[in-house]
């Protein structure tokens, strides 16, 4: 019953967006409640209240997981995150995020980047805290192995290979009926190998899955929910992003485990 509620409540607190499988699981959990005995129903009421508190309290704080201490603007500068592509490659919609250009190379505004990265990390942490599935996507062959290793270390999922057509939009056929889709997709590079936008961005938007994306100066940030302007070509920058996301997700999961333990202790007391 708790798992049904959790699955139901992963994103409904964060966003008022409803999706099919969530509703079904909520319906079945309601069914369970109506058919169980009265005593069981009474005992589960304080349980639900505590779970609700665990889930809703972090949403009231602006930086519940203290993610601002994970990076500074100087770190971003040293990791060469501010370096964009040349003026000719610039995307029209990236102009608000650029600080300027020097010798034809676009420089990304690190103040905006820091703020947007903070928001993106915060969102990721909340999703991980509520037990959501996070999918790392990138089509850069240089960093595919790094991203897969990162995802394995934080217990989440990765897709750095050829993206088959209906992976998100035709999921029951591509996988099996009853599959659960990712709750958040993080793009470490929004372009594929022929410099077109990755199909996953459009598909995630179709399936109402929120996205976080590292957008370089030649990328289109429009369909991404939490764009983070930054360099996606340098190994130093990619390693930094991987490290940051891994730390946020691990922190959020540890915090959740802590809260569950506290709940267990307080319930037994």
């Amino acid at each position, binding site marked *: 019953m708790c798992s049904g509620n959790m699955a139901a409540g992963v994103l409904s607190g964060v966003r008022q967006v409803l999706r099919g499988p969530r509703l079904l699981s909520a319906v079945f959990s309601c069914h369970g409640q109506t058919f169980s005995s009265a005593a069981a129903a009474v005992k589960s009421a304080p349980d639900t209240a505590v779970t609700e508190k665990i889930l809703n309290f972090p949403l009231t704080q602006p930086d519940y997981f203290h993610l601002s201490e994970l990076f500074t603007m100087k770190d971003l500068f040293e990791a060469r995150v501010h370096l964009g592509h040349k003026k000719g490659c610039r995307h029209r919609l990236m102009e608000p995020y650029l600080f300027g250009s020097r010798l034809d190379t676009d420089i990304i505004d690190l103040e905006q980047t820091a703020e947007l990265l903070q928001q993106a990390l915060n969102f990721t942490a909340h999703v991980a805290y509520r037990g959501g599935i996070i999918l790392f996507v990138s089509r850069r062959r240089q960093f595919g*192995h790094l991203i897969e290793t990162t995802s394995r270390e934080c217990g989440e999922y*990765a897709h750095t290979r050829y993206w088959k057509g209906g992976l998100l939009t035709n999921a029951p056929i591509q996988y099996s009926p009853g599959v659960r889709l990712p709750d958040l997709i993080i793009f470490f590079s929004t372009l594929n190998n022929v410099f077109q936008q990755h199909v996953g961005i459009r598909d995630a938007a179709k399936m109402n899955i929120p996205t976080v994306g590292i957008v370089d100066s030649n990328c289109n940030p429009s369909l991404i929910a939490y764009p983070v302007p930054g360099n996606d070509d340098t190994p130093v920058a990619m390693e930094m992003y991987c490290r940051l996301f891994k730390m946020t997700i691990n922190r959020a999961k540890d915090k959740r485990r802590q809260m569950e333990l506290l709940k267990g202790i307080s319930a037994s007391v």
Partner: protein
Amino acid sequence: MAASGCRGVRSILWKYGSCAKNLYVSRSKMVPQLPLRQISVASSLWKKNLAAAGPQKFTQEFIDKQLEEFEVGKRHLANMMGEDPETFTQEDIDRSIAYLFPSGLFEKRARPVMKHPEEIFPKQTAIQWDAEGRPFHFLFYTGKQSYYSLLHDVYEKILAIERHQDKMRNKGLFASDTKQILLTGSRWLLKEEIEENLVENISDQDYLRLIQLMEKLLSMPYCSLEEEFILKFRKQLEVQSSKYQIPALQYDPQGVAFSVADGRRKTAKASITLRDSGSGNITINGRNYLHYFPVLQNREQLMFPLLFVGMMGRFDIEGSVEGSGHSAQAGALRLAISRALLSFVSEGEVEKMRQAGLLTADPRIRERKKPGQEGARKKFTWKKR
């Protein structure tokens, strides 16, 4: 698609009124709340589209039940045959079934069989996620998790070897003539064999990519660190020449070595006795080969095996042959001579003979005549109208 799914689910919610309290539903004013009742739908809607469903899937409980029944049945069978149930092997089972259920069917696979369920039911992938819906494997969302995980592991090993190389270079112990893995006598696993191992389908390009990665791993100087891993993907080729049964060398009362062998070609059957320390006489069916085979080509066929191994004047050949025509009889005798020669010749020579085609039985037989045609291939005169 998601929107219509939502609408469908909302209509289900309507029927279970109170539970929908917590969820935001927008059409509350338009549709009045309906009481719980049976939905009657036409039976044609319940019929499953059997063609659209994939290959038959078996549940884990079904397979477990089959396994249980197999084990119990094995013990019953052992008792029936009067043997010890504890030491009843698969060969014993096959023998007993063939005895109890004799079948005259030509197709071996159509005969009654009792085998372990793992051999009968195809290997299937179990449910890939846990109770909360989180998949077990970190590459689940790629679609081909085993294959991509294999590529990931191979690349991991390449990186590990590169790091080892760098360490050795730093210490100054780098040597390019390190122990190499022996690859002769083995081949890469075929695409079908890899599919079987991974329990998922891969395309030809995927297979080529995997082989490319393995070759890259092999090209590095310190690849011997991962020898065990690489050999898992190599299959040993059987030595072809060891397949032949060499006829035993016998000795007659005078101490002369001789060997006996048979050969067949079309419907001709031949039997040859090859005697050592002879002078090159060839006797067939009691007559000299010059009389028996007037045609030069047939006599050449007889001489070819001896000419090939260079033992022309050494042997006395005594042969009997029956059936078919002169050419087929010559072919049958040649095969018999080659087989008899195997006991007088070394291992390397056996391989050479095999490659020359001396030891291969010619499988060609007369093709049957078909109805509606003049012969096997010849058709009746084609008339335009």
